[in-house]
């Protein structure tokens, strides 16, 4: 409009033509993108493998028992109880457990539960321990105190008198807290990772800390007291604690195995087996009376193990007061103790119960929920029961919890007269001291030490 060309209409027509041509131009370049194998494609492949047919395609004519527990049945019970995961998720987990059974071939395999983390979650499967050499997956701390090179002649450096307190040994695989082996994965379809066995030190520290799980097995657990291990160890310790506190079954479902009384082996734990004559208890009874439920997991003692070990006996002490320092053996409730004996916390019973359906009570399940470990549930119906944990993996600590404080800084050296700075004596004091020395010397006592001191005090 500023230029005022003569053929305004022609120019306008040209511009309009160019505009229309632009919209018809092919903008693709001759370079073609390669398909990007993204993480999503890899994940889809994993999911597809879940559905692959079983390796052993021979159809069993007889109804043999399989190692895989019926997760579908578990899913049904949990849904009726109003807890648990969606049916589709449980079905996927079922297929993933099937993969685990095919890979590891355990005697039994049970879904233990799901632990939620901040970045991703863990699905946990429980299998009884098999007789095989266990591979240590976690790094054990091996630190030896190094002997310092000392000038033995003059001025020896102060020797540290700190002796590391004896560490309780891990329980043997297949007993106590290590009775079961746990496998975890983040999502059904991913490879199952075997968790290392748990040590008493890890349980002891896990009892004092309260940290969320992140979802990565190798992440560091930042806490005070420092946790001996990474998240895989922390997860295993929490699983051990949760199992010890919340694995319950109807009374008389399991019975103790009679063992020969052996005085030396008092420390051995009683074993239990399924009671073939179990009759089943009605759901309403199970809901009302907590004595109808018993713990079938071993209680973990304050030491961090299920059987107590006398650490003082291992030390070669020559002290005479060995007997006075003898620690008292720790005792916990024996296996198959009734749930009604569980201690109350926060003025509330530790378990809360309800019937799954009030409208059709005849077929209802009895459901128990743990208040101490939010997320632990047990359901029972007729002759069957289910235990599951779905939660964050943390105990209810109450409002008055505060994390333990670090100890005061250690002393670098013993405070004594050799290292404390003293004021040099005043002239008058020195004179008074030397006067005394002369007096005593004149009295006949040899006070050569004082003279030496005076000389050394320069």
């Amino acid at each position, binding site marked *: 409009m500023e230029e005022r060309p003569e053929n305004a209409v022609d120019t306008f027509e040209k511009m309009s033509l160019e505009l229309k041509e632009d919209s018809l131009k092919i903008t693709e370049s001759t370079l073609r993108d390669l398909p990007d194998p993204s993480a*999503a494609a890899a*994940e889809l492949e994993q*999911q597809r493998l879940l559905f692959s047919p079983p390796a052993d395609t021979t159809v069993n004519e007889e109804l043999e028992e399989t190692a895989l527990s019926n997760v579908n049945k578990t899913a049904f019970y*949990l*849904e*009726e*109880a*109003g*807890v*648990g*995961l*969606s049916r*589709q*998720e449980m079905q*996927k987990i079922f297929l993933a457990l099937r993969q685990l059974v095919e890979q590891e071939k355990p005697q039994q395999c049970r879904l233990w539960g*799901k632990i*939620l*983390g*901040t*970045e*991703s*979650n863990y699905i946990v499967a429980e299998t009884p321990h098999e007789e095989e050499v266990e591979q240590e997956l976690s790094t054990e701390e091996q630190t030896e105190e190094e002997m310092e090179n000392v000038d033995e002649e003059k001025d020896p450096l102060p020797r540290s008198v700190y002796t590391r307190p004896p560490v309780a040994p891990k329980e043997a695989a297949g007993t106590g807290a290590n009775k079961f082996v746990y496998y975890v994965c983040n*999502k059904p379809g991913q490879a199952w990772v075997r968790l290392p066995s748990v040590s008493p030190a890890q349980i002891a520290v896990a009892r004092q800390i*309260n*940290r*969320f799980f992140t979802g990565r097995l190798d992440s560091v657990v930042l806490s005070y007291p420092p946790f001996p291990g990474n998240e895989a160890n922390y997860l295993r310790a929490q699983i051990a604690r949760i199992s010890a506190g919340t694995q319950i079954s109807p009374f008389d479902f399991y019975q103790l195995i009679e063992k020969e009384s052996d005085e030396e082996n008092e420390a051995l734990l009683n074993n239990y087996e399924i009671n073939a004559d179990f009759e089943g208890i009605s759901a309403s009874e199970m809901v009302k009376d907590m004595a109808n439920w018993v713990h079938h997991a071993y209680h973990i003692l304050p030491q961090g193990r299920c059987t107590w070990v006398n650490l003082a006996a291992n030390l070669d002490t020559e002290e005479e007061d060995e007997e006075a320092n003898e620690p008292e053996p720790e005792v916990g409730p024996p296996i198959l103790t009734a749930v009604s004996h569980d201690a109350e916390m*926060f*003025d*509330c*019973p530790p378990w*809360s119960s*309800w019937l*799954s*359906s*009030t*409208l*059709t009570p005849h077929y209802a399940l009895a459901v128990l*929920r743990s*208040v101490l470990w*939010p*997320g632990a549930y047990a359901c029972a119906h007729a002759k069957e029961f289910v235990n599951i944990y*779905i*939660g*964050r993996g*943390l105990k209810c*600590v109450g*409002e008055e*919890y505060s*994390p333990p404080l670090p100890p005061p800084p250690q002393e670098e050296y013993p405070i004594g007269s050799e290292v404390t700075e003293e004021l040099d004596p005043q002239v008058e004091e020195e004179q008074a001291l030397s006067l005394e020395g002369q007096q005593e010397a004149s009295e006949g006592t040899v006070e050569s030490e004082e003279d030496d001191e005076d000389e050394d005090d320069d």
Partner: protein
Amino acid sequence: MDADLLTYSLNFVTGQGGAYSTEKIIALKTSFEILKQKYKFQRVLLWGKIMAMKNIYYIAQGRGQDELADRKYLYSFDCMNWFLLPSITDSMIQQVAANARGPFRGEPSFVYPARTRHGDEDKGAGLVATEEMRLAVTVKQIDEEVSVVPRGAFIKTGDLVQLNRSFGGLSKAEGKSLDNYMHFREPKSIKKEGVQKRGDWCPSFDFLDVLSDDVPKGSWSLQWESDDKVYILSSLLWLGLAFYHVPTTPHHGYIYFGDGQKNVHLAHMI
């Protein structure tokens, strides 16, 4: 969580542990319709359940004309017979804060024993906290602190906050950032400048507080469920609150499943 899409939406959030048996779902669907007619609600939402010692409280929320301001809460034990929760007053909050401790008991008429503290005897005399009051205050508090909606799901026209009928959902990339999720409560944040710097800031969408302003920073856990193609946000401050959103669709909702106690130790745990 909308009553009409209950079965569909519950599928997503049960990953956090709270399931509903089929019996409860059909009871909810029926009773919500009854509630809609009785109380003249526009929508009835399932808010969640609070596990008490002896019972389970099922909580529902009815919304009126203004989605933010007209909210009423109801509770039930069997998902069929609903009772209105009392509306909150400041004195009620004080009484509950002073006295209610420990898990929920399960009886709405339970009176919490008064806690006597030094210097508080004059003020404390006569203040009682019943479980019903505690329930009302807790539910309101959870909504205040950890309710979540995606950005754009609600619009503010004039003074009215309403559902945005043309909400297409967040895209998959948008859903990854906590900037695109907001608290569904009266906005408290004074930091308006950060929000206004957004390229696509719009006063009718951005009238709520954004989740990324929450302290402490790690108090939300955002996970992507690739089977269901859904984002799940779970709160670490009130353990048990789960929010889901399917990207590029308008489906979203949040539900609570827990024991109704705030996680006051959050700062130590992250």
